[in-house]
């Protein structure tokens, strides 16, 4: 949908949210049109205006207005999407959720409520102070907004088989529908509804069906942790060790990361770690007591040790563990800083049975792709979640079209692999750049159902227009 905005759009927005919460200057519009993709902003798709409502009633009025004048509305948290959801294909109103940043713990109810504009790290901190934790751990925790996390239903680096996804803890939400009505879903109790629960349309709803204005989540007590490492001669051994862990019914790790040898070496060198060369698996277990967490780790190590590792052990030295863990965390930024260029990665997810083959293909991610094959591929990921992030460093000096081609090839290969293994992305959302995958994976009928559902909620396709293709 591409429309001309009403001439009084900005004044109308100022009337709804107040002048100080409307910005229509070109620089704000440019910044709101950019995401983590390495290519340029496009002048003809800049938003018309950025608004920062402070209440659900204001959002309601904006949505009614947008419906009446057929102007698209794009919800924006921190704009950190990796799949193009924060890069709008047509102009419209950007609805920034920044002011929805309140967090309230209600221990007597057993839940907390927060606004979609709350930053993940702030919520973590507020919960931690009272002995609770947030069941989501994105790499972008310092800036990722809760609205984005819940709309994607991403536990991010946490292994889903351990504690599930954030949606498993969401008791209910408050949302404004694209047509302006305000609804509340779910419960204030601690049991999520059995049967139909409207919450599910919004949690993991890719922002298609409404603007989340409040999130209610169960309080989850902090737990104790144990940590471990295993180092292997190759990726196939890593894959077989993880298969064993699941098939031998070991406790699911809370985190389980891996790095191919060359990536691990970069991280180790950076952090001054002297260790056996090889493909590295790092994991964390969680439990009510240190002893139980250690017992779980030992159980996992029984499986990891059966695939002939150079080493497989628990790590009890907190300083060493911090170094090892941060060696994994700094890889992307180091590669960018070393080259002066930008990182881009894919999200390849395997099924359990084919993990060795899938891991091998992820290690050769760029093979045969005209543009990406010109670049070195780096591989790491959340192997406990059977997730791999093959990445490349895209030269900043490439022209815009070549950068776009590189990103398109990345999604193309990701699509091929996830289709082949019958999986889908588990972290970053399903549409925008991944719409083609969705159609192939779930068929025209499946995609049609999503579009039909969108139509029920959003008859004029006002909200996050372009996430679904017409």
């Amino acid at each position, binding site marked *: 949908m591409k429309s001309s905005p009403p001439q009084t759009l900005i004044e109308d927005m100022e009337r709804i949210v107040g002048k*100080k*919460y409307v*910005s229509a*200057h*070109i*620089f*704000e519009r*440019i*910044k*709101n049109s*950019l*995401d*983590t993709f*390495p290519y340029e*902003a496009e*002048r003809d798709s800049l938003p018309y205006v*950025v608004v*920062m409502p402070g209440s659900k009633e204001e959002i309601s009025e904006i949505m009614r207005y947008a419906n009446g004048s057929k102007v698209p509305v794009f919800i*924006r948290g*921190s*704009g*950190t999407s990796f799949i193009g959801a924060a890069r709008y294909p047509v102009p419209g109103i950007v609805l*920034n959720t*920044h*002011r929805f940043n309140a967090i309230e713990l209600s221990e007597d109810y057993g839940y907390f409520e927060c606004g979609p504009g709350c*930053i993940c*790290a702030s919520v973590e901190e507020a919960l931690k102070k009272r002995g609770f934790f947030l069941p989501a751990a994105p790499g*972008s925790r*310092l*800036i990722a907004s809760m609205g984005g996390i819940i709309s994607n239903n991403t536990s991010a680096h946490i292994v889903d088989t351990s504690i599930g996804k954030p949606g498993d803890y969401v008791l209910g939400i408050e949302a404004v529908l694209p047509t302006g009505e305000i609804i509340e879903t779910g419960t204030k109790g601690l049991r999520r509804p059995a049967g139909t629960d409207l919450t599910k349309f919004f949690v993991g709803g890719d922002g298609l069906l409404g603007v989340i204005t409040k999130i209610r989540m169960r309080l989850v007590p902090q737990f104790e942790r144990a940590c471990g490492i295993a180092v292997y001669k190759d990726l196939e051994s890593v894959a077989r060790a993880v298969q064993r862990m699941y098939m031998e019914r070991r406790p699911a790790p809370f985190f389980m990361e891996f790095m191919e040898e060359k990536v691990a070496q970069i991280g180790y060198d950076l952090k001054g770690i002297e260790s056996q060369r090889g493909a590295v698996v790092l994991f964390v277990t969680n439990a009510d007591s240190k002893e139980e967490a250690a017992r779980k780790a030992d159980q996992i190590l029984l499986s990891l040790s059966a695939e002939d590792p150079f080493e497989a052990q628990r790590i009890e030295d907190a300083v060493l563990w911090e170094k090892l863990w941060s060696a994994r965390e700094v890889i992307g*930024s180091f590669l*960018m*800083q070393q080259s*002066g*260029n*930008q*990182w881009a990665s894919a999200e390849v997810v395997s099924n359990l049975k084919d993990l060795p083959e899938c891991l091998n293909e992820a290690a050769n991610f760029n093979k045969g792709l005209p543009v990406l094959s010109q670049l070195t591929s780096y591989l790491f990921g959340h192997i406990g979640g059977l997730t791999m992030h093959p990445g490349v460093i895209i030269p*900043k*000096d490439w022209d815009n079209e070549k950068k776009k081609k590189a990103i398109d090839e990345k999604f193309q290969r990701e699509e091929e692999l996830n289709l082949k293994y019958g999986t889908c992305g588990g972290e970053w959302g399903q549409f925008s750049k991944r719409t083609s995958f969705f159609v192939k994976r779930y068929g025209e009928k499946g995609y049609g159902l999503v579009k039909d559902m969108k139509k029920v909620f959003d008859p004029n396709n006002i909200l996050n227009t372009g996430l679904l293709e017409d």
Partner: protein
Amino acid sequence: MNENEIKGDSYNKETVLDAASRCRNCNYCFSICPLFQSTRGFMSQTPSGILQSIKYAIKWDLLKGNEKETLRDLVYSCTTCNGCVVRCKAKATGIPVLEAIEAGRKILREMMIGPLPQQRKPLKDLLKNGNPYGEKPGKRFEWLQDLPVKRLPQEQADILLYVGCTLSYDQELHGLGRNLLAVFDGLDINYGVLENETCCGDPALRMGDEAIFQELMNANVRLFKEAGVKKIVTVSPHCFNTFSKEYPVQERQWSVRHYVEFLLDILKEKKAALTKKLPYTVVYHDACYLGRHNQIYDPPRELIAMVPGIRLVEMKMKKDEALCCGGGGGRMFAEVEEEPKLARTRINQAIDADADVLATACPWCYTMLMNAAKDMQATDKIKVMDITGLLKESMDTNE
């Protein structure tokens, strides 16, 4: 290129475009940016937002358009606290965000778009009077006329105490200056001040005027040479940073230190000089140009902790994550949007740390925080002091 040469428009544009081309818009810099925290939260009011704004202003020819003043207001709103640089280095692409923003200021200044209207007079005053406050050069040391302080080059001294403009011309800070001199005297330091001291040039640089900076720098270098200066100790972290990083290496025939490091070394040898126990719980506010710009985090804390009786505590945001007071980057000379006021937030953080003294080591931080405490009517809850005040009180010296 000669290091002493003014870098031109094309160099500044290239600096911006190169940094912006490496910026991934991951927005991690938002999370530490005081500007983002003290404005309404629009994305252009952030480090990467400002960077991208300058980039597209260059690429889309917006420097001549009707939004050039909007761009100016964005670019000059940065406190230059360097938090974005630290965060980007730790978490992202490690680009020189601040260098690019300051290159943007130079571009705007060159085109007469910058600085902010309220900053124009201080810039003119820098050129005319050698200080940004519109005061006559001859008034600079009126506050210490009754004190037996050596004047260079007429007299000789081991150390040049570079007082700086703010301490010299702001009456509210003269007490701080007297404390510092009392400490120096109490420690038998052979020091003097420079008779014709002129501004180090930091405000000119921060406001994007490289030509005025060069004038001031050349004047200072000449004065230092004439006086045979070998060692400089500064009161302000901004002067310290300017002398140690912005003056060309080939001109530096002297060493420069901020007073916290200088006094720390001396007091390690003369700890007995700190005689009086002070029953204070003290929290230290990291000045951006000591901390994030120069990684001087521990010396001020060590210095405070040397004072007998003091209990040193920490605020929520400290060291490389410390919140800026809001006074850097030329903002001392202009009213910029700030709600909540950064200095007020900092006062609240100090109170939350259960401190009864908030210690600073920067005249601008002191001014910002002191004014905030007064505005908040919180002076009964938290006392803002420069570290020199604590030292002086403990040394129990007589002026």
